[in-house]
């Protein structure tokens, strides 16, 4: 298969970027999108040109490192699929494919298609954890968890932190990511001690980092490679209202646990 690619090139966060047009020829339909880009990069290197920077790690859809906006859609046209699991047979032969980085003020471009998602780590560091008893492993089934809660927690825990929700949101809001973390831990008994401070601190951090406000367009849910539902956002909205207005001062403060 042959494609005409328009790749976003940007030397660094401060430089002005622009599209570079390249032909990708003889692409196998069974290549993943990233393998196709690897081939393009090989050509660049053979010609002594600068390879296009993009991120990946597991290449099996579980780590959340790959981050490409393909024809305007984060992770491309498939639902519930990361860019590394997207295959070239999904495209039409001869098609023009535009590849852009995640675009958000809170995710500055490092180079080309790679962006800095440290903002997510900052959000996690203020509340995305639980206190655990160290030492011997707890008894299996020692803590009863209703099936429904376990299922919801599991759905939320599927978040791989890729940031497609931010990339897809018209407002570059991180609500789905934060909601997934809040829901994942808040559904389980182990997550209860920090439940109120977790939601308040994570939301405050998210606001502070320059993500936009949620306007319930549900683009995040549609773009999420793990298909995490905006129901978790509604749940976080409830939790936030209660915790922010009724939580203790310590829960609402910026300081650590």
């Amino acid at each position, binding site marked *: 298969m042959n494609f005409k690619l328009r790749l976003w090139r940007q030397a660094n966060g401060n430089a002005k970027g622009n599209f570079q047009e390249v032909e990708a020829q003889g692409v196998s339909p069974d290549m993943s999108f990233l393998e196709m880009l690897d081939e393009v990069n090989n050509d660049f290197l053979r010609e002594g040109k600068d390879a296009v920077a993009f991120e990946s790690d597991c290449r099996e859809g579980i780590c959340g490192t790959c981050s490409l906006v393909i024809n305007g859609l984060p992770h491309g046209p498939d639902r519930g699929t990361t860019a590394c699991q997207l295959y070239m047979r999904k495209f039409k032969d001869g098609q023009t494919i535009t590849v*852009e980085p995640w*675009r958000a003020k809170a995710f500055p471009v490092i180079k080309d298609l790679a962006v800095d998602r440290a903002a997510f780590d900052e959000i996690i560091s203020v509340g995305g954890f639980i206190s655990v008893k160290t030492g011997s492993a707890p008894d299996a089934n020692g803590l009863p968890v209703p099936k429904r809660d376990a299922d919801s927690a599991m759905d939320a825990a599927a978040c791989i932190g890729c940031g497609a929700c931010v990339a*897809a949101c*018209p407002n570059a809001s991180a609500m789905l990511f934060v909601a997934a973390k809040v829901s994942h831990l808040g559904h389980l008994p182990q997550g209860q001690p920090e439940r109120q401070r977790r939601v308040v601190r994570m939301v405050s951090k998210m606001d502070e980092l*320059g993500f936009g406000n949620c306007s319930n*367009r549900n683009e995040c849910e549609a773009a999420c490679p793990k298909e995490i539902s905006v129901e978790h956002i509604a749940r976080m909205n409830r939790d936030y*209202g209660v915790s*922010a207005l009724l*939580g203790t001062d310590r829960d609402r403060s910026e300081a650590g646990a």
Partner: protein
Amino acid sequence: MNPVFQYLRSSIGRKQLMGLSGLLLYGFLLVHLFGNLGLLSGPEYFNGYGHLMLHTLKKVVIPIEVLLLGAFLLHLLLGFKVTAENRAARPDRYAVRASKSPRTGFGAYMAVSGVWLLVFILVHVPHFRFGAYRATPLVTYNGVEMRDLYAEAVRSFANGWFTLFYVGSFLLLLVHLAHGVRSSLQSLGINHPRWNPALDFVSYVYAVVICGGFSGFAIWLWSQGGVAA
């Protein structure tokens, strides 16, 4: 920091206020539509209703009006602020825009429809709410002098452009509400798979009833051709 202050400054707190104020204004529209039904009972009934609301029941109605004005201003200011912040959160736009979400359609026009509705309210409220102290003609029933709002409505809507402006505004209201109602509920944390289809249904039907109702009155008055029944 004071908890209320912190809540009001947060993204979620503001969205919840936005939703609550929106729902309050939305609820008022139904009351307004019921008031309009009085048009069908003729001038004496309708003008009597206006007089009752704006004069006899002043002590009750004015506090409600102040509350609605407060909700309106809050909704407006938050709308501008949130929209500005959201633009700032994505300084570089995408070259290709696409969407996988079925819900995004109406949501994209909240700011545009909101600004239009502001213009509408700036035209409508001074005209019909405060017009008495300017140009609305007066009538006397049983020795009580009151504004002839019925005649004013008939006279105004005889103008095709005026009617078109109203009907167009109601269509934009439909657009605003088609996204706004469910969005408000979501911001307030109301979202459950068992109830979502019902919520969708009720909010769409409500939006259609409100917009269809107001448009119906506008078109009906226009069709009277300026002749008071």
